[in-house]
């Protein structure tokens, strides 16, 4: 019982540290690709210390409430994804609960963005919801394929089956197709370069984040760090055989993230209708074929 409480408190902190490290690593790798020295790796920590010491401007009660709502949803979602052997709440609900909780974060942003009364905010939030609509369709097909193959919705059971045998992406053809489809939609869920039209600093002045001052921006950055961890950890748990050891899990997340950063450094930004056209095209087709094959095989 005590161990469970300690796990519940420690897991978001570990996720936060991993997320901050990845944000700094992203800036450093992008800088080196541009042939320049970059900021030091702990630069996001410096940014967060500065943001927490600024006097911010508030626009009303709903403005504050929306951010706290979305941050709370993200923190609760972390407790449902197993991280090596630490998995406080993974036995209750599993994949179905994750599907619902993933939509609290954009909802909180939309609530507080409505109070901000800036046209850039409304354009950014509409783009965010349309993008979520885009990647939710192949995501649900992938989750259905995984649930049918393993005959369970509990993530711990999925991880244990993979630990006993192969990685699930190599164990059967429909799971291979589902894994490839998930990797194709991963930049959209992380908010990386071909799909970063939600926060587009040059076009819509940072989208939903445009009215957030000092402390609010710190909370949004924390939420961004946690969202990075969630999408990557889910991919590693479902398809790359989430590890039994903390270090091996961390290395797996790191490799997937660095591939995502390399894609981020090279591609330009798509428009929102091109993004939805892509997301409902190729990856949906592959995931649908994978789902049909699970019923046949």
């Amino acid at each position, binding site marked *: 019982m005590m161990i469970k409480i300690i796990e519940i408190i420690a897991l978001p902190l570990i996720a936060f540290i991993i997320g901050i490290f990845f944000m700094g690593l992203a*800036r450093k790798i992008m*800088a080196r690709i*541009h*042939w*320049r*020295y*970059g*900021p*030091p790796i702990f*630069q996001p920590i*410096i*940014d967060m*210390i*500065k943001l927490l*010491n*600024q*006097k*911010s*401007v508030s626009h009303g009660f709903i403005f504050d409430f929306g951010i706290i709502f979305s941050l709370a949803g993200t923190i609760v979602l972390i407790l449902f994804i197993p991280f090596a052997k630490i998995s406080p709440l993974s036995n209750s609900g599993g994949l179905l609960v994750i599907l619902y909780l993933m939509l609290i974060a954009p909802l909180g942003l939309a609530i507080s963005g409505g109070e901000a009364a800036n046209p850039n905010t409304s354009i950014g939030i509409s783009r965010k919801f349309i993008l979520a609509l885009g990647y939710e369709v192949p995501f649900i097909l992938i989750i259905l394929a995984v649930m049918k193959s393993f005959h369970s919705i509990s993530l711990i059971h999925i991880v244990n089956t993979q630990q006993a045998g192969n990685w699930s992406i190599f164990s059967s053809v429909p799971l291979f197709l589902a894994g490839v489809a998930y990797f194709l939609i991963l930049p959209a869920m992380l908010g990386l370069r071909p799909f970063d039209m939600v926060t587009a*600093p*040059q076009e819509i*002045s*940072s989208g939903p*984040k*445009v*009215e*957030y*001052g*000092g402390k609010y*921006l710190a909370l949004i950055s924390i939420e961004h760090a946690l969202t990075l961890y969630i999408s990557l950890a889910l991919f590693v748990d479902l398809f790359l055989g989430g590890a039994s050891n903390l270090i091996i899990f961390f290395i797996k997340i790191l490799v997937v993230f660095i591939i995502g950063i390399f894609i981020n450094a090279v591609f330009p930004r798509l428009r929102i209708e091109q993004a939805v056209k892509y997301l409902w095209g190729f990856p949906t087709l592959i995931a649908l074929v994978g789902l049909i094959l699970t019923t046949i095989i």
Partner: protein
Amino acid sequence: MDRNQIKKWFKFPAQMGHKYSLWVTYFCTGCGIIEIPPTITARWDAERFGVIPVATPRHANLFLITGYVSVKTLKAIIKSYEMMPDPKYVVGFGSCPINGGMYWDSYNTIKHLDRYIPVDGWIAGCMPRPEAIIIGVTHLWTLIDKGMASGYKKYREKYKYYRENQEKVLGKLEWQPLFPLKESEEVK
């Protein structure tokens, strides 16, 4: 550069944080904005010092006034300056914000930017090269260390006089005063 000294981070975290992550409002004020893209791209990399351009004044710390200020630009500068969150620094480039510079007898530019918004430092040059801009940022760090870069506090205390000056040039201002203008006698 004392970014590596961990003891100082524990003693004065706020000061070190304000120094090593200065976010610049990307507002192209005058003719000197031509020198900002070379400073932030790969050749004279300013991201090593923590300086990145951000899209809105609500995220920003540092406001660079690059070049001459005409009367229409002054309106936009005052609005953006009042939108920035509180510890904020202003740096002027060239001789035009100091005393009018090349446009000393023009009817449409303001001389002496210091009388309308508080300015913390000036960088010489018409326009300064990227190396000079980066050295100016390091001088701003020493000022922040000594506590002398307190333009934002001056603006808060003497807002009545700043607003008088602004109204003489721009006419009646459309926005409400940022800080209350009349002080009650009991406060004194």
